[in-house]
Every structure is written in structure tokens, then in C-alpha cells.
């Protein structure tokens, strides 16, 4: 008999003020830009300033969000640390490449190279809390975070671990933004976040963030929700998508009617939002709908923000106005489905349930 998996705590550093778990999108920062940077928490409260100066942004954000999650779960260590990141500490990679070229492969120092390793965040967290357990890093674009969820869920269900720190982190840096704007992945003109879905332009607004959660097979007072199921697919055609979602729900003994809220990953890219709008008008037309990328902006692990949002909604039973995509209401929000894809690839479905 496999064990039930719970989300026992959350920790978020994002382009909204989400680092304080006692709040829930109380203040919204509205961007009118092509990029959005994290709202910095008080890093000094978490990291000695001397260390913080040399730290990559992704490590700093993750130190705060992971410590927040551990604190809220009331634990100091975990059995495993699993991190998803599309690009790792890409800022250090870029600087190191720049240094190689600018200095013709001379006068280089190792710090940037070391931090550029994709598994730096998972390694640093393990080092910080002295966790000698299982340590994994997934780096598969828009399903990096979901890959981590699948791994953690498998271990908790089989009782191979009791508490796992799972997270998703990506940092935004200049060369990456500038180069991806060249190929149309990032919008060329600023867009008002509140009108993101009506932008009718190519590309997305790029952001960054770090989301960590303690997943456990033991429910406790701090528990937010149950993680029922996660699936990732490298491809799904638009035509096949509704069928894929329905069979995912069936496999998890959940009817379409049972979905009290669907959280969709629309990012305002005129070329790819069709995946979502078809669902909104199709199989989810009678389902309350929410979206979030006008708040989080887009990045490989932006779905960590959706997971955070879903967990918060289930715990507080409050759906903030700002995330509502339609005006349908469920009397209670018991079951949430999160669907995400990026540029038509790397689709993911996550099913959460109130407990």
C-alpha cells in the first residue's frame, strides 16, 4: 500500500512579495516590462553578508526559500534534497564564458566555474544543513520542477524517505535574456502585466524565482494539501491534449466535475497560448480557472509558483481576485489541477487535493 504524500510547508522568493508565509499576495507588484526581477527578501536574516557577496542569485534565493520551508515544517534536516532548475546558476556560467573569451583563457578563478555547475543549489543546501541523504538535480526545461516532484513522490509513497525538500529555482541574467530576445522567446516590447494575455505578441515576459516545499508522507498541523499525482510529457499535440488530461484524471479516479480549480500557465505568447485557451473554452469551460504568469513571469521553474499558489489556495480556501481567469466559483476548493507547457513542449499535469 503506497503512502499518501503531503505538502507540509512552502517557501517562495519570486517577483512578487511571496517570501513571507503569513501573507498571500496581499500586495501585488505590477510590471510593465519584458522582464521581472525577484523582490529581494532580507537576505541578511538568512545568510552572513560576507558569504552572500560571493553567492549566485539562485543560491541566495534558494537559501531563503528552502530555510523558510524547513522552518514552517518544523524540521532541521530531511532525508533527501531534490531540485529542479532549467539553467542552474546561469549568471556564473555566463560570466565564466565571458571571462574565458575576454581574457583569452587566462587569469580565471574557480568560483564562477564551481557555481555554474547545475547542482550547486542542491549541493549548497545539503552542505548548509549537513544532509548526507539522496541529492538530485533535474535540468529539463519546463519540467525540471515536476521531475523533482515525481522523484520525491515515488520515494515518499514507497516509504524510502519521510521528509523531502523539493524545489525549483532559476535566476535571470542579461546575456540569456538578450540572446533569447533575439530569437523571439522574450517579448521585444514592454507589456502591462495585467493585460499580459491580451498582448497578441510573440514571446513571454521573463522572470525568476525559487520555490521550495517540504513533502512528507506524514500529515501535520502545517500541512497544506495532498499531492495526488504528477505527470510530464515531452510532447502533446493540441488535438490530443484534452484526451490526455481526461485520461490523467481517470487514472487518478478524479472526474472533470471534481476539479474545483484549474491553474493554467498562459504566458501571453501569441504563438503558444492556444494550448490553454482551447482548454479554457473546451473541457474546462465549466471549471473555475486561474492563471499566474502575469504575477510570476515566465521561467523554466515558474510552475513552482503555480504549485505554491495551489497549495496556498487549498490551505487558506481563498482564491485571490488577481489570479482568476473566469468568474466561476466552487463552493469549496478541494481539488486543483495545474497544467503547464512552454512553447508547446514539456507539458505537465499536477493534481492537488485539500486534506
Amino acid at each position: 500500500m503506497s503512502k499518501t504524500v503531503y505538502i507540509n510547508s512552502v517557501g517562495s522568493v519570486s517577483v512578487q512579495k511571496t517570501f513571507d508565509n503569513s501573507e498571500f499576495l496581499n500586495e501585488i507588484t505590477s510590471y510593465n516590462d519584458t522582464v521581472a526581477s525577484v523582490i529581494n527578501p532580507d537576505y541578511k536574516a538568512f545568510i552572513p553578508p560576507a558569504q552572500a557577496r560571493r553567492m549566485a542569485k539562485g543560491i541566495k534565493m534558494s537559501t531563503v526559500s528552502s530555510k523558510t520551508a524547513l522552518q514552517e515544517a518544523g524540521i532541521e534536516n530531511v532525508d533527501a534534497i531534490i531540485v529542479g532548475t532549467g539553467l542552474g546558476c546561469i549568471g556564473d556560467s555566463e560570466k565564466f564564458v565571458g571571462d574565458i573569451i575576454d581574457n583569452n583563457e587566462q587569469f580565471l578563478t574557480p568560483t564562477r566555474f564551481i557555481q555554474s555547475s547545475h547542482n550547486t543549489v542542491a549541493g549548497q543546501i545539503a552542505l548548509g544543513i549537513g544532509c548526507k541523504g539522496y541529492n538530485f538535480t533535474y535540468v529539463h526545461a519546463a519540467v525540471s520542477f515536476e521531475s523533482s516532484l515525481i522523484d520525491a513522490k515515488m520515494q515518499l509513497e514507497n516509504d524510502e524517505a519521510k521528509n523531502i525538500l523539493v524545489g525549483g529555482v532559476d535566476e535571470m541574467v542579461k546575456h540569456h535574456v538578450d540572446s533569447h530576445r533575439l530569437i523571439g522567446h522574450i517579448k521585444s516590447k514592454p507589456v502591462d502585466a495585467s493585460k499580459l494575455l491580451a498582448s497578441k505578441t510573440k514571446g513571454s515576459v521573463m522572470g525568476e524565482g525559487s520555490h521550495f516545499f517540504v513533502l512528507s508522507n506524514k500529515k501535520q498541523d502545517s500541512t497544506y494539501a495532498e499531492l495526488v499525482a504528477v505527470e510530464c510529457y515531452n510532447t502533446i499535440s493540441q488535438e490530443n491534449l484534452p484526451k490526455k488530461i481526461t485520461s490523467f484524471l481517470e487514472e487518478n479516479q478524479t472526474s472533470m466535475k471534481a476539479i474545483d480549480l484549474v491553474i493554467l500557465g498562459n504566458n501571453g505568447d501569441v504563438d503558444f497560448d492556444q494550448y490553454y485557451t482551447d482548454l479554457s473554452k473546451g473541457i474546462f469551460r465549466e471549471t473555475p480557472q486561474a492563471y499566474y504568469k502575469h504575477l510570476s513571469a515566465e521561467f523554466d521553474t515558474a510552475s513552482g509558483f503555480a504549485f505554491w499558489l495551489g497549495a496556498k489556495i487549498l490551505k487558506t480556501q481563498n482564491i485571490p481576485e488577481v489570479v482568476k481567469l473566469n468568474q466561476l466559483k466552487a463552493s469549496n476548493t478541494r481539488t486543483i489541477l495545474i497544467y503547464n507547457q512552454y512553447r508547446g513542449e514539456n507539458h505537465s499535469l499536477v493534481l492537488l487535493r485539500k486534506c
Partner: protein
Amino acid sequence: MSKGVAITGMGIISAIGNNVLENYTSLISGKAGISKISHIDTIHADEIMVGEIKTTNTEFENHLELPENSYSRSPILGIIAAREAIQQAGITDINDYKTGLISSTTVGGMDKSEQYFYEYFESNAHWQHINGLHAGDSTKKIADAIGLKESFVTTISTACSSAANAIMLGARMIKSGQLDRVVVGGTDALSKFTINGFKTLMILSDTYNTPFDENRKGLNLGEAAAFLVLESDKVVEKENRKILAYVKGFGNSNDAFHQTASSENGDGAVLAMQKALQVAGLKPSAIDYVNAHGTATPNNDLSEGRAMLRIFGEGNVPEFSSTKAYTGHTLAVAGGVEAVYSVLALQNNCMYPNLNFKTPMKEFDLIPQTEVKEKEIKHVLSNSFGFGGNCSTLIISKEA
């Protein structure tokens, strides 16, 4: 005692061969693939040796019928090895069972990014490589090349233990019934980025690497891709597959000691080996051969040697060797390359020499296998350790 997961196919490309047979032939004839670098223009060319695959990207792209300079080298190598593995398994339709692809890489498309880093802003000639920097992009290209659709496809990057972890995850997903079949492994090409990175860490040897030798001077970087096909009992039975070997045990732990160095006594390595033995339900004495991580850096070989002594006991360490003197250290793929070599060791009942070994290390009395040796081999233990404290061990066995 838990049952192993069947390995039904394998593919590899490395500095000692473009397929499994060529690799095996080099291994038993003591033919190393370490040379001066020829494909990358680096000022360190005279101070380093590498395990380079001599075929050029253009030659590979012609062979794969890809447009010239369309892919970075990691996905190209990955496609070649993954296809060989699938072919060996006898798979004709990759989508006929619930199949996953778990690849791993550390550099992804860095070889191209570093080449066109500034040029992107002057001309659109090489914009096809911009998105190739993402580690996941190399895996996506492999998935496309093998025709995998609507499936679980992911990428692991845990530095030099990546492919071992990909194999471990694949085995776990088969065991838990989430997948019927999974292609697991990794791919990493040489790049200026890693050459200079390891250079700053001062762990690159200027000559042939000498694992477990007192006078070892560091590692030679290498490039490779290696994949295994793992299949569930259901598929094996239905398709009447020939089983090459089994993934019997696996263990992952973190040294939690230092971002780049291993702890002096190899705590993480000990934990990884213990867990793998536990999963396999084997006593240390059941291990017939250890394919060591053995990078030939002062730090790794000392730490790993001590860890082996802790696991097996003084005087009881089985025959062991590092094959990195053949291939160089292929970073993410090391665990994949060495899994293929472990299967070959089981199939042929032979173990490979630890080339270039002369002087035993003064810290302990451990002497690697220095000649090809034939003996009945039932269980091989293979170690892979990486930056970030990542330690992984696989046990590959003849019987389930």
C-alpha cells in the same frame, strides 16, 4: 532481497570507440584514447591531454543527415549512443510501451554557446544554437531522434555522477511500475568551458592520467555518450528479450563536506556503496570487481580508496580498476560509460586494467588491477562522484 531491473540494450561512443564492440576491443587490448586536443582551439592545448572522439561534428552530421552546424556536439553524441542501445534491444517502435528517456549532461550546448557568445548580437548566422544551451535541449533532440512522443523525458545534472543517477532513476521508475521501458544515460562533449574550469581548479594532468598512483597529477577530460535500455519483466517476457545484465543495486548520497572536494574518509562514497549493497541485498564480499570512479586527482583517489577500505575491509577489497585512463573523465557520462563497461565485464567474465599505474599510494595498501584478468564475475560495483558532494553507486549483476 530485491529483484534487479533488466538491461536489454546498450550503446556508447567514447574516445576508445564509436560503438560497444569498438569500446570492448580497446578495453581488452589496453588501447587508450588519450591524446592532444584537436577539435577545440584552446591556449591550453600543449598543457593538457584529453579523451577526444576524433570524428568531427560535420562528419557526424552528414552521417545523421542533419544540416551542417545545426546541433551542438552533446546531442549528436547522445543520438548515436541512444540509437545503438535501442537497436541492440531490438526495439522497432519506441512508443509501443510506456517508455521514458532520462538523459544527463553537464555542458549541454556550451560548446556552441562559448563559440558564438558575442557573435549572436552581430549576426543571426548561428542563432540555432541559442536555445541549445539549455541542458534539457540535448535530451529533447535525442527524444526526437528516437521518435519518442507524449512520454516522460527528463535530464539530470549532478556533475560527474549524472549518468549513474539517470540509470538509478530509470531503475526505480521501472521497479515502481511507472514505466515499462526507459532509455537511460548521458552525453557530454568537450568544451572550452570545462577545460578552463577544471584548469582553474588545478586538477588537470598535463600527461596521461594515472588513477590510484602515488604520483598522479590529475585528470584528463573526456567526451562520450552512453545509454542503456532498461525494461520491465512484462516487456522482457512479452518480447522475449535477451537480457544483458541487471541493475541490481543503487545508492545515492551527499558527502555534505565541500562544494568541489571529497571528504578525506569518503563519507558520502561509503554511504552510497552501503545503500547500493543494501538495495541489492548483497554483502560486500559478493562484489567481484569494482569499476572505480578513479579520476586520478589526488583528492578523489584518496577519498575513494579509503571509502573502499571502509566498505570491504583491509585486505578484502576486490579487484578494482579505473577505466578513466582509457576514456578520460567524461563528466556527466562517466557513470554511463562505466555501466556499459560493467555489463561487458559480466558478459565476458573479464576485468580491465587500470592503465598507467606504477607506484602504490603511500596512504594505503591498495593496488588496482593492472592486466586484463579473466574470472567469473557475478556482481560489479561502479562508483561515480561529483561536485556538490554527489556520490552514486550502481551494482550491475549477471542474475536478477
